[in-house]
């Protein structure tokens, strides 16, 4: 129970931790990817700015050039107008481009030269326009024709073209990377979602399992409770029975010990009475005794004295026998039991073999039937139990028919076996069914020798093994002794 609970807590905790870690991973990678994508966006923006800046700058320069040429050729002031506006916007566009390329190594390194070329070109343009304004247009045209300006311009164009091409590549790369980053983000999210679903499924299965375990444990506890009550009742019954038995035993012992004691005391007194009758005769010393006195003394010597002595002797002998019987039962009760697996069939066959001779004399037969259940118990006790039961079956066989003894055994519930020893003997009267198990008690015709110990012994042996013995019988038909024994003595508490 405890291990289940702690493993449940552990696996739930692990699941929650894994889920949390995955979530953290998704959030982290999302933040990283967003940052990444912002970076690519900046990249795109700056590449765009460089591209448009370059285009703008080039077209402005070309505008300025066109204006200058128009003015040089026509010397009309309205051509000067676009030139001037171009120059005006040029410085702003130049600054814009400068800002765009600042911090970008591949562009920045070319910028000073571009700057210088632009300045040189503007100087050229300004110089020619100034000359034309002073009326020296021809000189200005000549300067322009020489093509020095053209060289500068192509240098500028080259750099700006490079800028445009490079920025185009950068732009494409940034866009590619951004879409790559987005794809990665999507993949990460999908994987994370899958992982969370898995973790969730795992957690659910753990919880489901735990709930199932819990309900199973609960039903187990319920059945245990029910069987516990049953077992408590069983034990209480056993205790009540044991207590009654002890009382009955004490009663029997005191009665049976008291009976010979009454005899001993009684006949001792009778002995004294007889002695009183004899004394005058023996101690007469020549006195004349009356007829009566002589008769009394003779009767006492002839009958009363021997009778009293016989009874005193037999009573002491009886007491001795009783005390020995009690000792035997008490010794059996204290003997250390040695539980071992027993082949019941073999044990029964051995017991049967020991009475085979007597059974054969009665034309009888013994049948040991069917499959025998397994039993682990004290072998000696079991041998004595069956030995006594078989002896009784032989002893109280009915004279009218050949003796037949049958033994059957089967499991009774998970913890007990039931052995039935049946005979077709003279049977036992219904009111004596309990009595026969009592110490010094016998039943029916008293035509066989016996002290009334055998079955009392069998019952005490059986109860020592945690079992019990009962009898079913019909007078004149036969008896069946039913043994109920724990199938494993080692599992019986209190043994």
């Amino acid at each position, binding site marked *: 129970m405890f291990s289940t609970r702690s493993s449940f807590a552990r696996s739930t905790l692990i699941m929650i931790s894994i889920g949390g870690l995955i979530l953290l991973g998704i959030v982290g990678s999302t933040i990283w990817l967003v940052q990444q994508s912002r970076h690519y966006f900046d990249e795109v923006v700056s590449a765009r700015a460089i591209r448009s800046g370059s285009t703008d700058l080039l077209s402005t320069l070309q505008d300025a050039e066109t204006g200058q040429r128009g003015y040089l050729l026509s010397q009309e002031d309205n051509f000067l107008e676009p030139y001037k506006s171009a120059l005006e916007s040029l410085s702003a566009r130049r600054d814009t481009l400068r800002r765009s390329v600042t911090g970008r190594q591949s562009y920045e390194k070319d910028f000073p030269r571009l700057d210088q070329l632009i300045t040189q070109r503007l100087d050229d343009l300004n110089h020619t326009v100034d000359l034309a304004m002073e009326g020296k247009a021809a000189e200005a045209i000549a300067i322009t024709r020489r093509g020095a300006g053209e060289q500068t311009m192509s240098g500028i164009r080259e750099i700006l073209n490079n800028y445009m091409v490079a920025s185009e590549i950068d732009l494409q790369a940034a866009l590619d990377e951004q879409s790559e980053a987005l794809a990665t983000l999507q993949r990460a999210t999908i994987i994370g979602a899958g992982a969370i679903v898995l973790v969730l499924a795992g957690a659910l299965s753990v919880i489901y399992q735990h709930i199932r375990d819990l309900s199973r444990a609960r039903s187990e506890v319920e059945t245990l409770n029910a069987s516990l009550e049953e077992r408590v009742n069983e034990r209480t019954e056993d205790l009540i029975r044991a207590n009654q038995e002890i009382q009955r035993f004490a*009663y029997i012992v005191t*009665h*049976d010990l*008291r*009976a*010979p*004691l*009454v*005899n001993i*005391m*009684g*006949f*001792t*007194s*009778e002995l004294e009475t007889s002695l009183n009758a004899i004394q005058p005769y023996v101690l007469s010393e020549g006195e004349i005794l009356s007829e009566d006195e002589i008769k009394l003394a003779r009767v006492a010597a002839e009958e009363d004295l021997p*009778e009293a002595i016989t*009874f005193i002797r*037999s*009573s002491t002998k009886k007491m001795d026998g009783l005390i020995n019987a009690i000792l035997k039962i008490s010794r059996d009760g204290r003997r250390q039991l040695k539980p071992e697996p027993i082949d019941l069939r073999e044990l029964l066959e051995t017991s049967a073999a020991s009475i085979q001779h007597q059974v054969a004399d009665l034309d009888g037969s013994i049948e040991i039937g069917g499959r025998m259940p397994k039993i682990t118990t004290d072998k000696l006790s079991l041998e004595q139990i069956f030995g006594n039961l078989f002896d009784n079956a032989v002893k109280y066989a009915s004279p009218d028919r050949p003796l037949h003894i049958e033994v059957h055994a089967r499991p009774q519930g998970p913890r007990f076996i039931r052995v039935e020893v049946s005979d077709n003997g003279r049977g036992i*009267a219904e*009111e*004596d069914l309990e*009595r026969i198990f009592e110490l*010094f*008690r*016998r*039943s*029916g*015709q*008293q035509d066989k020798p016996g002290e*009334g110990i055998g079955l009392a012994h069998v019952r005490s042996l059986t109860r020592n093994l945690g079992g019990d013995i009962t009898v079913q019988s019909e007078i004149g038909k036969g008896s069946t002794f039913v043994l109920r024994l724990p199938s494993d003595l080692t599992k019986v508490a209190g043994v």
Partner: protein
Amino acid sequence: MKGTGKEVTIVMVEDDEGHARLIEKNVRRAGVNNEIIPFTDGNSALDFVLGKDRTGETSKNSYLLILLDLNLPDMSGIDILAKIKSNPHTKRLPVVILTTTDDEGEIQRCYDLGANVYITKPVEYDSFANAIRQLGLFFSVMQIP
């Protein structure tokens, strides 16, 4: 002790021969001269009182007094008492329980079943002899149906 004009026979059911002998001696000392028939076990006593068939027909016209010990080897004296007291022919026969037991429950049960007298055998012989002698005196004045 007399029945209506007939001598009464004492049936003594006592498994211990020593006790039987002591009881007989002391009953005689009390001057009771009725015939005493001893039995040492229940079955033979019942055979005599109720007959082999246990109908009680045999005792229809006999005058018996039954001295009964409770602890017998083959059956309980209580069963004998119950059988005698439940038989229409023998139910009026006086039954004297004479036993070593002084268990309260046992005494009550015997009277419930119809025992007429219950006497516990004292261990001490003087008391024992005295009790039996007084019982004998009681017998000598008793009227049996």
